[in-house]
């Protein structure tokens, strides 16, 4: 699985050059190159079960990292935490709605660019002051697509084609800031928006269950995870629970991501915490409120302290969860059962 990662770096440099010749602000991977990357990988078979630290080593400086879930739902927090601990640099984060993980990556200096449609935690917590600081002071670049726009970018990637036509984003200023192009429909003469495929170097996903081969089951809303897994060159998955292959084979209709897309799978209960995992635990809103109160008082310095306490100091994920306390975890699990049950 490491061969795929090392092959990527040289290819990425070459294609960054070619895409710069194509103009526009959007950085593209050629769909032919994206296909070659998939064909170059050993895709089938093998035991992919590993630890979060080992899995996160597949992420390299400069990678475009797509994060699954949506906002504070099924965020692969254990993997984000490892990437931060390993001190990655120059990453581009691609996510549909960006939440606290985007703030962590910006403040830690891991990412300087975010491809997204929206960033903050949610209405009760106001506009992200980290987004404001990094955008208003020019400390990071934000490439803003509409929510469907970014979804279709992942879907075009998942389909292995260079772009998809759509009726959204037309006429808006999002066209200018993303460099999205239009075309005249050859059948009807109408104007169409073309969103370019997004082929992330790495996808980070958190799912409910997976087997050792990486076959994944997701309960509740699937978000964009299946498209992201197909579009990415490497796919790293954390699962709340590792299940036997027999259990997958008994319910093949529940497999949302087949193992042949997946490079590494890690068992991490509460792997999204303090974000939610449908039916298993509710997002910890009180924790968000405390976190935002810190930022309100001290800006990004509060995030740096938070990272020290929650990311760098705890040596293991168990130690990290210990900071929230068993009572909080059980309370959030109870809330989830009440909400979904």
């Amino acid at each position, binding site marked *: 699985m490491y061969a795929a990662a090392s092959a990527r770096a040289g290819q990425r440099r070459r294609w960054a050059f070619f895409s710069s010749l194509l103009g526009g602000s959007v950085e593209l991977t050629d769909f032919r190159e994206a296909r070659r990357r998939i064909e170059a990988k050993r895709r089938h078979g093998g035991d992919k079960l590993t630890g979060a630290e080992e899995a996160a080593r597949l992420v390299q400086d400069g990678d475009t990292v797509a994060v699954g879930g949506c906002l504070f739902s099924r965020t692969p927090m254990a993997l984000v935490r490892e990437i931060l601990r390993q001190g990655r640099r120059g990453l581009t984060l691609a996510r549909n709605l960006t939440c606290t993980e985007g703030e962590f990556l910006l403040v830690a200096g891991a990412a300087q660019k975010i491809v997204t449609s929206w960033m903050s935690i949610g209405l009760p917590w106001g506009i992200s002051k980290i987004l404001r600081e990094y955008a208003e002071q020019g400390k990071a670049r934000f490439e803003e697509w509409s929510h469907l726009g970014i979804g279709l970018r992942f879907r075009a990637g998942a389909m292995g084609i260079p772009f998809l036509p759509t009726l959204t984003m037309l006429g808006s200023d999002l066209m200018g800031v993303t460099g999205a192009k239009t075309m005249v429909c050859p059948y009807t003469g109408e104007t169409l928006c073309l969103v370019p495929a997004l082929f992330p170097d790495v996808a980070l996903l958190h799912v409910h269950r997976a087997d050792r081969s990486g076959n994944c089951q997701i309960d*509740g809303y699937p978000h964009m995870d299946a498209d992201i897994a197909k579009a990415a060159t490497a796919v790293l998955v954390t699962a709340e629970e590792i299940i036997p292959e027999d259990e997958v084979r008994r319910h093949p209709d529940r497999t949302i991501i087949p193992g042949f897309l997946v490079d590494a799978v890690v068992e991490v209960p509460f792997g999204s915490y303090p974000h939610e995992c449908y039916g298993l635990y509710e997002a910890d809103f009180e924790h968000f409120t405390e976190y935002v109160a810190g930022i309100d008082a001290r800006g990004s310095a509060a995030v740096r302290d938070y990272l020290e306490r929650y990311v760098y100091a705890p040596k293991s994920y168990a130690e990290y969860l210990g900071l929230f306390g068993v009572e909080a975890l059980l309370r959030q699990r109870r809330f989830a059962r009440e909400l979904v049950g």
Partner: protein
Amino acid sequence: MTAGAAHTPAELLAVMGARQLQDNTAVFAGVGVPLLAAVLAQKTRAPRLTIVIEGGIIGLEVEPGRLPISTNEMRGGRRAIMLPSITDTFLFAQRGFFDYGFLGGAQIDRYGNLNTTAIGPYERPTARLPGSGGANDIISLCREIIVLTFHERRRFVERVDFITSPAYLRGDGSRRKAGLLFGKVTRVVTNLGMLGFDEGTEAMRLEALHPGVTVDDVVKATGFDLILPPRPGTTDPPTEEELAILRKVDPERRFIG
């Protein structure tokens, strides 16, 4: 406000928004006051209203005290009819299945364009806002779009700094010329009154005032020249029943203020 039961501006928006929705239709709603308005409609005039939110939840039935805060969370998923992927949720709108789009906005201009991206230049804004999310898609793809927003001079500007969500662009058919063939913004519901758009120029016009509001109040709170009718209508004030339902749905007053 001189008539009806005492209420907050957000409650007034939710009530007036809810009254726009017909039964046996589908509404794609942003979270916050738009979703609250959709829930109120479902609990009053439109029991068979299909409510959609962009995290991939179709057919919400919100229980009192369990109004979703975000577009994807378990409060929304409970008793939904379908949880499709986010992309597929929007594609239902692109195909034409959603009758209404329900949106809020930070800045709105004469032609109804909304800005939730940036005040000042995009590259170095004086105030960065969260961004489009699904707002651009909702306004581009639903059949009839209704905007719910507070009526303030700093929000109602001549030209938005950034068109996140296009209504009529620069008027005179420019929305259609850009390729936005299907949807149209029919209403802007504010805490002062009801507004619409002139069919020819596509510029915003005042249509009705809420009880106790004068044309002068509206003009003073608007940063561009509104088209004013000779005799604007007056809306019926919120009823006790409407307000009671809102307060039951949002007991912590997160959205109703």
